[in-house]
């Protein structure tokens, strides 16, 4: 078992102080040239006081380096956060993104001066279309939920063009859906109809049959679903919804499991969204930036947002096409998160078609390896039919452990941190009680998977022998259990709030 101890930097009786607290009057980390001309700044834009911390360059570097040491990341170890696809981000992609021609290009530059950028976007679009089996892709949406929302707007435009917008007010989602699905549909003005999953963990067809009607605008589906199971009746589902006149939207969050193996276009989906920060390693982190491109069938192409990148064969140049009268319009300033698009494109070229297929195979193999190894561990159970394989992620229920020892999914997740492994997603999907959602991705070697399995087994033993050890965890990390009640009652969200409260926290 790995002995793990995370760095912990303390100062003045608390964890690494805020940079404002390191401030000392007169300390500076810059030298500015003397002003040659007087600059006229309008009075209303001039600030009297600038509350910037006064610290030297050395102090800034050390402060942020200490913080980074107290941070866990994919570069340190496994990150089995289910549904997030926390795969390793190849350094090659980072190198490309920091090139001057990528970092300093400006969206308002004349088209002739950014032909390379436009070409890259055009070709990325084509790759994504090929991967998903769609006719055309728009790269503008900057996040997954944004892509979902855009897809719903396209759905509205489609039904409006056929005079059915007033009638088709409902969007169907499975109860295993990621919360952003119904939220995005609701934001687009739709009513939500939730259908339950059956005992096999798939969409209950009987319920779906009764849920779908002439009022159905679309169904949002993830395949494989959030339980990591392939919807083996997807063709029937698609037929059911199409027969009722609705569209099928594919949530691409789990695309990593079917790359090169299966395509939503072939399953019959009309609209697809991608999470470049998940599947295409661009990378994935709280706050982004991400990218949520949307792909559609030929019939829906005209509704895509403007502008789209087009290629003029005669003049051999790329250009931004705004002449799209049926488009739903702009969904973001400019054309998409360009830096992210560059990395995604580079990743696709790096892997190639064969490589992407191997990615899916390895991702699925790794998840199944973990599943088989953990089946039979005391306290962990699979809610669905365990005879078949899972796809790229597996969901265990810790209900038995909770009932017999008092140790919950949350406790297990936190104890994993003491072994230097990031926690899996817990309490999602909501249809599984005490859920632990494990997605290893293809990046992990067999040795890393074995370490994870060993840690999970050890935690099960600890729960039955000495549950307090698990419930107290983590203790080997920079920060232990948070007082969540206090955090929700007394949130301190900014420096200003902190100052006004006048309290220090260790």
């Amino acid at each position, binding site marked *: 078992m790995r002995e793990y101890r995370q760095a912990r930097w303390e100062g003045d009786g608390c964890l690494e102080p805020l940079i404002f607290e390191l401030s000392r009057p007169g300390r500076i980390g810059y030298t500015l040239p003397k002003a040659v001309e007087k600059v006229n700044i309008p009075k209303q834009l001039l600030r009297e006081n600038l509350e910037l911390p006064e610290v030297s360059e050395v102090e800034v570097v050390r402060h942020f380096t200490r913080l980074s040491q107290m941070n866990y990341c994919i570069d340190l170890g496994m990150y089995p956060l289910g549904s997030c696809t926390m795969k390793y981000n190849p350094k090659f992609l980072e190198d490309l993104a920091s090139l001057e021609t990528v970092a300093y290009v400006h969206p308002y530059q004349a088209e002739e001066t950014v032909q390379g950028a436009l070409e890259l976007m055009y070709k990325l679009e084509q790759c994504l279309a090929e991967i998903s089996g769609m006719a055309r892709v728009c790269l503008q949406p900057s996040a997954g939920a944004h892509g979902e929302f855009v897809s719903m707007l396209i759905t509205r435009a489609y039904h409006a063009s056929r005079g059915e917008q007033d009638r088709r007010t409902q969007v169907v989602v499975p109860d295993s859906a990621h919360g952003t699905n119904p939220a995005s549909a609701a934001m687009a003005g739709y009513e939500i*109809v939730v259908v339950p999953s059956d005992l096999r963990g798939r969409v209950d067809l009987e*319920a779906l049959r*009764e849920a779908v009607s002439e009022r159905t605008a679309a169904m949002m589906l993830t395949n494989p679903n959030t339980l990591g199971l392939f919807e083996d009746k997807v063709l029937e589902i698609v037929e059911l919804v199409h027969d009722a006149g609705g569209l099928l939207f594919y949530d691409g969050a789990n695309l990593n499991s079917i790359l090169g193996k299966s395509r939503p276009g072939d399953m019959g989906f009309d609209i697809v969204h991608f999470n470049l920060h998940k599947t295409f390693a661009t990378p994935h982190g709280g706050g982004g930036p991400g990218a949520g491109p949307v792909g559609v069938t030929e019939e829906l192409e005209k509704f895509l947002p403007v502008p789209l990148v087009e290629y003029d064969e005669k003049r051999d140049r790329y250009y931004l096409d705004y002449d799209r009268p049926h488009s739903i319009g702009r969904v973001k300033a400019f054309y998409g998160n360009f830096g992210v698009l560059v990395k995604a494109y580079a990743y696709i070229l790096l892997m190639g078609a064969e490589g992407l297929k191997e990615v899916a195979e390895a991702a699925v193999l790794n998840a199944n390896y973990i599943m088989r190894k953990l089946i039979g561990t005391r306290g962990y159970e699979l809610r669905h039919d365990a005879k078949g394989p899972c796809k790229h992620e597996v969901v265990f229920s810790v209900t038995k452990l909770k009932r017999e020892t008092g140790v919950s999914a949350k406790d297990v997740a936190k104890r994993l941190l003491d072994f230097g492994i990031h926690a899996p997603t817990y309490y999602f999907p909501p249809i599984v009680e005490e859920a632990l959602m494990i997605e290893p991705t293809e990046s992990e070697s067999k040795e890393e998977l074995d370490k994870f399995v060993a840690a999970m087994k050890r935690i099960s033993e600890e729960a039955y022998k000495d549950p307090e050890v698990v419930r107290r965890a983590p203790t080997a990390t920079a920060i232990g259990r948070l007082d969540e009640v206090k955090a929700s009652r007394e949130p301190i969200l900014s420096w200003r709030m902190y100052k006004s409260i006048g309290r220090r926290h260790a």
Partner: protein
Amino acid sequence: MHKLGLIVNPIAGIGGRAGLKGSDGEEIVRKAIELGAGPVAPKRAMEALRGLLAVKSRISLFTYPHEMGEDEAKEVGFSPNVVGKIITGHTTADDTKRAARELRDLGVDLILFAGGDGTARDICEAVGNSVPVVGIPAGVKMHSAVFAVDPSAAAGIIMKFLWGELPLREAEVMDIDEEAYRQGRLSAKLYGYLLTPYEPNLVQGVKEASWMDIERDQQAAIAKYIVEEMKPDVVYILGPGTTTKAVSEELGIQDSTLLGVDLVHNYKLLARDVNERQILRAIEGKSAVIIVSPIGGQGFIFGRGNQQISPEVIRRVGKNNIWVLATPQKLMLTPTFRVDTGDAELDRELRGYIRTITGYRESRMVRVG
């Protein structure tokens, strides 16, 4: 040879279709009969007994005279041992209590009774948890956790218990808190505990009144949606409970009932606390919609506390015009709905999936099992 005690409360449930909030007291019974009500419990008791015919030769049945069990048992084909004395046609709570005590003292393995919360309360007062009890749901108020889902389920539980498979648990005996009800709050009061065999799927859970503030917010969201969907010139039949009350409140109606069925038409209260006949009269020649919610922890959308919405009413309104309301919390307690309209054919038709409104512009397909 197992000894089984049987008590039938012949006036239990008599208030149901007439819209009375129970059958406690002679006054209410007289009123119910005036309104055209007939006895319900004897039929339900016989239905349960029929489910036990298969093991008739291995059960020794003990019961009270005439309509308190003897008649029902003989009608079905049992040869019961009859004990005790009653004045036929004038049975009271005291008779129930005496019966319970006598059957217990005779050493029965279990007491089977047909009645409602009132009957459960009487038995509880008489014998406490000194003998296991199973209730055949036949009353109007059935909040207690001692009732089987329906008469044939009661028979099933008894067989499983007598032949050794089911454990016992303490089940709440509840009834409407009269005090709270007068203040407009639906609150079930705990009266005591009875010992009952436990089979998760077939025994009702305890009826819980609205006990979370979050619940209130969710109900308000549902109510807003419902009111937006309401159309003019349609009669809306609002079932009992706090969720449907939220709908009336959203409409600005102050004096709708909590426990009864009210009618709303053109966004105003058309009639309050109606019975089956009044409903049928009101919807004559009009479009109508039934709005109900599963009552508390039981999951019943028809058959518990809203018997005024009878099979006749449901058939006239039409299956497609039933709106079921349930907050997500309630669905966690009862993920499956149940129906017990009294018409087995209709119950069968209602089974499947029904779209249940769970929030503002949000609904879920819930199984009716």
